[in-house]
């Protein structure tokens, strides 16, 4: 089927079809470009500083200072409140442990909301680091639990209440799987997230056996008058859409020696927190004298969050 054509007509056929094709191609490319139209509403483009910012562990003190000032400026622009954003370093000779007394927890959820207020969590969509599971007496089968209970008053007879938040595991599956090391365990035991480094792949959320992690599916909203201006870089600085967050043992409080917000509001004193390396701390006493257990011990996460019953 080899036909001999004079070069001109051969070229003209291909030229015609080339022009035809390229017109359609141009229209197609234009349609694709028009497809990007929604990006007009992207608003403030990400600043070059923020885009190029290095990982937390690579930041020198002067770089970190610049970052903190930048964050302060951003928060002020967004919420009209000038915050204090600091980078708290871990204390030496400290390893945090949390103990929760399941006899005393009545399921009032004051801890949940104290955490929300302290840590500048999004109200819409609502993010809550702590989930209180109402369990029927006699079982630890989570499928029988219910986190959405809404009775007139608590506690209800025949049930116990089990708050679950990040356990700051010693062998965390979440830090293992993060492809960019945006989450790691600090020397004092807290598993932290560098919100400005996280790429939002949600692998850590899939890996966590305790449903402790939360993802910002959209830009968080916090009422301006409810912002907590005392912030820390690894803790309660306001997050943005597309990054993970979770309980960090109120790092901005605990690293200056204070109790976490959830503990301070518990009306029945069910929550206990302290330095396990101090043999006189209440958590050291609890781990020595009470019959403590952890959730899903068989997964091997070695949580730093212990549950126990008093009576």
């Amino acid at each position, binding site marked *: 089927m080899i036909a001999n054509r004079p070069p001109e007509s051969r070229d003209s056929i291909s030229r015609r079809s080339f022009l*035809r094709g390229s017109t359609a191609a141009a229209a197609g490319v*234009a349609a694709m470009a028009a497809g990007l139209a929604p990006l007009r509403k992207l608003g403030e483009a990400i600043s070059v500083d923020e885009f190029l910012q290095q990982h937390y562990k690579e930041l020198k003190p002067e770089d970190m200072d610049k970052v903190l000032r930048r964050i302060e400026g951003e928060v002020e622009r967004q919420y009209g409140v000038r915050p204090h954003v600091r980078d708290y370093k871990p204390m030496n000779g400290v390893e945090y442990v949390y103990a929760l007394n399941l006899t005393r927890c009545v399921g009032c959820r004051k801890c949940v909301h104290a955490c929300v207020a302290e840590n500048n969590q999004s109200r819409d969509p609502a993010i809550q680091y702590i989930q209180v599971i109402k369990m029927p007496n006699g079982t630890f089968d989570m499928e029988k639990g219910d986190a959405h209970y809404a009775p007139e008053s608590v506690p209800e007879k025949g049930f116990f209440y089990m708050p679950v938040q990040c356990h700051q595991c010693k062998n965390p599956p979440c830090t293992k799987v993060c492809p960019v090391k945006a989450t790691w365990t600090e020397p004092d035991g807290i598993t932290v997230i560098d919100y400005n480094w996280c790429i939002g792949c949600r692998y850590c959320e899939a890996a966590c056996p305790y449903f402790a992690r939360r993802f910002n599916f959209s830009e968080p909203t916090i009422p301006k008058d409810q912002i907590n201006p005392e912030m820390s870089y690894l803790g309660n600085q306001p997050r943005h859409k597309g990054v993970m967050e979770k309980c960090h043992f109120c790092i901005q409080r605990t690293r200056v020696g204070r109790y976490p917000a959830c503990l301070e509001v518990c009306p029945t004193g069910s929550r206990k927190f302290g330095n396990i390396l101090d043999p006189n701390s209440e958590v050291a006493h609890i781990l020595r004298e009470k019959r403590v257990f952890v959730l899903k011990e068989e997964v091997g996460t070695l949580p730093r969050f212990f549950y126990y019953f008093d009576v």
Partner: protein
Amino acid sequence: MSPPPDKSNFVMTGLIVLFLALGVSFVFSPDRAPVRQDPELSKLVTPAPTTATLRITATQLKASGGDASILDCYACHDEKKPPTVKLGADGSIVFPKEHADLRLMMANCSACHVDKKLEVEYAKNGDVVMPKAHADLLAMGHGRNNRNTNCFNCHSQSKLDELVTRDGTKLTFAQAPLLCASCHGPTYRDWELGMHGRTNGYWDTSKGKAVRQDCNACHDPHGPAIPQIIPLAGPKPVLTHGLRSAATAAEGGGPKAEGGPPKAASQ
């Protein structure tokens, strides 16, 4: 030999029209965010956290001159449904049972009681009978099966500003925890070590104070059980959206909310 130009041109024109239509619709489409809408969530208000205790101790109440504003009222009261005040036949305020101990704490015992030995009245079945003057001030609920309703298990019969343990040791009101300890030893041991009862402030006492609570801050000695509390809002149920518009989902049409009614307690 060559492909029929008509069909080719027709297809090309069709495609160009399609691309232009798409382009126009992209650029001029209304700005409606294709986002899951959950109208209830936007009304979520975070209650201001309070480190107030459930009770106010007698010392605190007396020190504040009767001001009970540090109490955590909304632990038991619904913020949206303020309580109503009940008035008696003579127009005076009737203290609800749950608050009766406040009035009792402010009372001056010697106003009614002259310094003489008091007696307890017993009913036919052995129960302690609450004297009429105290009847609307407190309801005894200490111990199961009414085991500990005898006033003088804790109060000194002869001196009303004193407490007394079972073996006769006299204690002041400030030493009340020792009285509780005389029966609740293990709990007292836990409390001493910080394992029972809340501690506020600093876990690292080199940096600040740790504020402990007395037994009375949470437990009414006459009815020590922690009262029922109104729970705050939990996580909102997640509506399964998908393949429907945001508007329809917001109206609640379609798949029911997940995690709705509590599961029955089955074992």
